[in-house]
């Protein structure tokens, strides 16, 4: 996955974008609009000014985290369909801890605490399917999906206790627990984006250089050989799922710590599933994940800008088409490379 030549990756991306644009054009034409106009508007409203750029970064941040989460689990041979639930609980935990701190808590103390809370809550939720897999051989795909449902119920159940009256959000976190905005023309982009980049770098180091990362990759490719090499396979599964959960939990930073300063029911919904797309689009490589997240972030913010011309369902369709196209073209090209490269 990682050593594949850049050219091939570019080709995959090109094919996918073209097919998504073609499908999109058909749908746009069906509505009687001009594809060129819509795409032009989409680009101008995203990368055309600093506010647009900021919004793209803001939208990409959760996708980087969930993309990394899915990619990391995937390297351990596990499918994390549960980022959706993990990020909800991460956000809620960050908000609750952040709101319960004393008002004057210094940032140096408060920030690490809330970020840790987000990661920890996600990690716990992620570790559950890991443990079920390790101890009972229960498949993590179904379990993570079930845990998404359960997380929604849990958030709402807790919500009755902790949401402010007449709202579906919690109290504000204290000043010290807030992440500053990046200052891009009032956009919502905040320091979480930098945090996401740091996370991507850390994941890269972990996978490419760290001993545990080496072991994790071995487990993902061949549990039998890894076990024979003294790697504790089950522990690695649990650790991988917990780490993936922690990464997803960090999504809370973007919304709770960097933007609204409270947790709101529905926060980050959809980012978990998009994370699968991001990981795939980014070919499991942290740098690829960042780029893919930026692409989908662009689509997500741009979709709103062109909403006057086309309904928002169109963006959902386009995203799905991109994923399908990437999945198909990367598989086809991998196969081609597999044949030629031996």
């Amino acid at each position: 996955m990682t050593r594949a030549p850049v050219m091939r990756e570019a080709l995959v991306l090109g094919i996918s974008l073209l097919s998504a644009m073609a499908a999109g054009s058909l749908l746009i034409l069906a509505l009687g609009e001009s594809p060129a106009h819509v795409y032009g508007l989409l680009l101008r409203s995203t990368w055309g000014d600093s506010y647009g750029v900021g919004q793209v970064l803001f939208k990409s941040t959760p996708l980087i985290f969930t993309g990394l989460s899915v990619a990391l689990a995937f390297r351990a041979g596990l499918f994390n369909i549960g980022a959706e639930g993990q990020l909800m609980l991460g956000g809620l935990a960050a908000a609750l801890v952040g709101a319960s701190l004393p008002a004057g808590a210094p940032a140096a103390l408060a920030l690490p605490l809330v970020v840790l809370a987000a990661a920890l809550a996600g990690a716990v939720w992620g570790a559950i399917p890991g443990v079920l897999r390790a101890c009972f051989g229960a498949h993590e795909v179904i379990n993570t999906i079930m845990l998404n449902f359960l997380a929604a119920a849990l958030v709402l159940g807790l919500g009755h206790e902790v949401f402010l009256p007449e709202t579906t959000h919690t109290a504000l976190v204290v000043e010290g627990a807030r992440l500053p905005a990046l200052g891009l023309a009032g956009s919502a982009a905040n320091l979480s984006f930098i945090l996401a980049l740091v996370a991507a770098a850390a994941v890269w180091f972990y996978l490419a250089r760290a001993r545990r990362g080496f072991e994790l990759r071995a487990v993902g490719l061949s549990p039998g050989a890894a076990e024979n090499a003294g790697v504790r396979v089950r522990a690695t599964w649990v650790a991988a799922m917990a780490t993936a959960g922690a990464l997803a939990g960090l999504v809370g930073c973007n919304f709770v710590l960097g933007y609204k300063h409270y947790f709101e029911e529905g926060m980050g919904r959809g980012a978990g599933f998009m994370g699968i797309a991001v990981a795939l689009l980014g070919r499991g490589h942290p740098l690829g994940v960042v780029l893919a997240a930026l692409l989908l972030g662009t689509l997500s913010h741009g979709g709103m800008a062109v909403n006057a011309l086309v309904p928002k369902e169109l963006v959902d369709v386009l995203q799905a088409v991109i994923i399908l196209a990437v999945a198909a073209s990367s598989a086809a090209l991998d196969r081609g490379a597999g044949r030629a490269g031996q």
Partner: protein
Amino acid sequence: MSGFLESLVGFAFWVQVLRISVPYVLAALGGATSERSGVIDLALEGKLLVGAFATAWVADLSQSPWLGALAGAAAGALVALLYGLLVLRWRANQIVVGVAINLLAFGLTRYLLKLAYGSTSSSPPTPGFEGGLAGNPLFWACAALVVVWQPLFSRTRFGLRLRAAGEHPQAAASVGVVVGRVRWAAVTLSGVLAGLGGAWLALDNHGFTAEMSGGRGYIALAAVIMGKWRPAAAALACLLFGFAETCQLHLQAADLGLPTEVIRSLPYLLTMVALAGFIGRSRAPAALGVPEDV
């Protein structure tokens, strides 16, 4: 609580269990078929949704529930065709494509709803089958399918090849079974069955509502796994889910003072507990998710 126990012995309660279970059962039979042939079937949710939309649309146009159900099955098959093209022909990752197809179905049905009816929420009321459960041909079709599906696996040529394709495709191929063809058939069957499940949703509800599948495809897949990939057992697991859901409905009405969130979560908890062991470790078809190799 006593009210709840009363309803438990009532006839209506069990009719409700059956009615709730029908779409699960149809989807699960499809899922079992696809998965036994070695193809993961996360796209059940999308097939249910598209099937439901097509059913409502055609039933509305033709004013015939029969044609609607037919269209639902055909639409399910169409989605399966796309799925097959991606994962069988082009060997794309089955889990990723499954999730993406669900996203696609979600967006596309809303988009089409808007095109056809100018609404993102629901279609106008459409005809359905009348006369309750006993008069519903889809229910009887579902019951009949449950009966014949197990022997289809164990006693027919197709079933034998299906199992071989899912366990050891190279072995099947080496004796002349065209694994690709078997998997195409299985995937298409799954599309038809899940499409019928969607038809049930639309007809029973007399119309299509955006996102009306409501996660039922995922539950059906969980039932397949709980049933250890055997159709009869999977159908039984669906009934269990139907039972849990019915209990949940009645428990809410009985007002136990339990938070609804807890009651609502019963089926999901049940799935996890079941997967974790009380059904024993279930072994997936060995080649599940592995693309056929030349």
